[in-house]
């Protein structure tokens, strides 16, 4: 995944690197250039000084050693000269055994000339007339110490540049982190939304984030309200249809109909069909589908109330126990899951002798929900039947045998499968696996 912070950091580092390198090399180059120009002037002066040192002696022209700078006497000192007149050449003592070449043209020789040892020489040649004789004065100066100094300066500047870059990057990281803090906070809150630990995002302080958060919140409220509205509408529809159904059922019990038992039976069957269909379709329609933030199923809060309710409705039940990992929250709509667990447990309670057990185990990436009772159970051959569409085995027991059908519809919507088996308690074991 891309990180904005990393991208900005890399970009800044590249820019700093390019500009830093250009700056360092450019400035060293400029100083070097200036220095060489300066050296050229020096060399010219030196050539003129040497010209002055050429004096008229007893045997024609001579070089006045007294007038020469001390550096010309020290061997390999870095300052050299040669003065050519006709076939005679005067060389400074410092040249030693090195043959200082004479540039072909007067003026500054281009580039460095190799010198004794590793020396790099700047060479300058000037032609003069002295006492009627043509003189060619060549002076040279070793540039290598300066080159070395420049290299050192370059390293030093590079080091400083790297340090500066590190500081700038660090400061940028700090600034960005500060700048991204509200974004990070919002990100955490969205994460909490997904985990069902919060119902809304807090309003941010920053203007840039405000519209985003407001939009998410508005969307949340809108979705919640729509679900609530449609559930209410379904509830009302259910109410409007169920009460007349109840009236019809009661009417069928009228003693006047005792003489028409087959009419009564026929109508009863039709009413059963309508009721069955109505309950299942209403349930399917009211399924939340995507779970809404804040509507997650909190086991610690919901299960005690559910079990308390079941104990109240089934007072003959001696033990209704549940084993659930502490603090477990399931990312399914609270009402939908209550419907599933309520129906399964209610069914188990109806059939049980004394004990009903609910177990929720955490598996990697899923939970397994198991409901068991110690009732008579269902023979293996009939279990299939129980799961095929529309067949009801608990028809005879008080209450309508819609429980399993509704549970199956809901589980199907979640992509889970109901499995029936034999319980260790002796009765039926119903289990399903929910991805989390």
């Amino acid at each position: 995944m891309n990180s904005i912070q990393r991208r900005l950091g890399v970009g800044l580092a590249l820019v700093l690197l390019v500009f830093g390198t250009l700056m360092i090399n450019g400035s060293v180059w400029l100083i070097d250039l200036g220095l060489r120009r300066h050296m050229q002037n020096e060399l010219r002066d030196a050539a003129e000084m040497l010209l002055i040192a050429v004096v008229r002696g007893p045997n024609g022209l001579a070089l006045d050693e007294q007038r020469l700078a001390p550096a010309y006497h020290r061997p390999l000192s870095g300052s050299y000269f040669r003065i050519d007149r006709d076939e005679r050449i005067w060389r400074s003592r410092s040249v030693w055994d090195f043959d200082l070449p004479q540039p072909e043209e007067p003026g500054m020789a281009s580039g460095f000339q190799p010198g004794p040892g590793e020396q790099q020489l700047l060479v300058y040649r000037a032609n003069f007339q002295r006492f009627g004789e043509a003189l060619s004065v060549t002076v040279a100066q070793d540039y290598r110490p300066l080159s070395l100094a420049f290299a050192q300066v370059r390293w030093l500047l590079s080091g400083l540049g790297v340090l500066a870059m590190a500081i700038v990057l660090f400061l940028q990281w700090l600034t960005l982190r500060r700048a991204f803090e509200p974004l990070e906070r919002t990100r955490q809150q969205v994460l909490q939304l997904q985990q069902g630990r919060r119902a809304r995002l807090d309003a941010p302080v920053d203007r840039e984030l405000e519209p985003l958060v407001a939009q998410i919140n508005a969307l949340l409220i809108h979705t919640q309200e729509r679900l609530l509205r449609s559930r209410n509408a379904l509830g009302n529809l259910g109410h409007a249809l169920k009460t007349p159904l109840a009236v019809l059922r009661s009417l069928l019990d009228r003693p006047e109909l005792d003489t028409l038992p087959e009419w009564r039976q026929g109508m009863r069957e039709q009413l059963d069909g309508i009721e069955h269909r109505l309950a299942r379709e209403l349930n399917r329609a009211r399924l939340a589908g995507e779970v809404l933030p804040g509507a997650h199923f909190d086991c610690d809060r919901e299960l005690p109330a559910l079990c308390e309710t079941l104990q109240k409705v089934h007072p003959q039940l001696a033990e209704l126990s549940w084993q659930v990992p502490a603090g477990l929250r399931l990312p399914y709509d609270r009402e939908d899951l209550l419907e599933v667990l309520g129906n399964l447990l209610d069914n188990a309670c109806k059939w049980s002798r004394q004990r009903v057990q609910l177990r929720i185990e955490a598996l990697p990436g899923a939970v397994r929900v198991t409901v068991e009772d110690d009732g008579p159970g269902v023979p293996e051959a009939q279990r299939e039947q129980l799961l095929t569409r529309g067949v009801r085995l608990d028809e005879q027991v008080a209450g309508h045998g819609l429980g399993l059908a509704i549970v199956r519809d809901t589980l199907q919507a979640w992509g889970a499968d109901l499995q029936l088996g034999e319980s260790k308690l002796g009765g039926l074991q119903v289990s399903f696996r929910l991805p989390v």
Partner: protein
Amino acid sequence: MRLLLVEDNVALADELLLGLQRQGYAVDWLADGRDAAVQGACEPYDLVILDLGLPGRPGLEVLQEWRSAGLSFPVLILTARSSWSERIEGLRAGADDYLTKPFHPEELYLRVQGLLRRAHGQDNRSQLEVGGLRLDEGRQTVWHAGEEISLTGAEFRLLRYFMLHPQQLLSKTRLSEHLYESDGEPDSNVIEVLVNHLRRKLGRDVVETRRGQGYRFVGCPA
């Protein structure tokens, strides 16, 4: 047994009234939540059947008011709202049972019988069995020593009340309050006549008379 039926659908209420009366209950009917709150608090009902979607006041609120006033009669919620979250809410508000519409009337009667038995400490039994007598509430007859004895509707009502309150001293006023609707209380002679009928069918000692105080159901010696 005197019941209060709170239901705003007139057609359903009519049918339930008929059915419950056939089961031998004295039933008062109210359709408004506000009336129910008042009448439930001042009349001695043995059980209340309460719809949740009432005009005037919501049924849950009425129920909570009764419970916080210390009224402990069993309440059966009868509603079209069938989701478990609503069921939990209803039972938490103090209801004792919850039946969703549409229902088989037979099931309502069974639940009412069950709740009444439970309210009088006769749990875990499918039939009322006290003092050597077994009451068949479906057929409105009583079994004694392996013999089925038929009862008239009024006798059945009185015997059921006695059997739900064994060994308790019951005044004539209390008996007529619990056996007849609020607008149909008969004079106390009717109770006396009914007690004599029961004695004729089940033996002299089945009900004890305390002069000036009332009656006590003792049951038949085995």
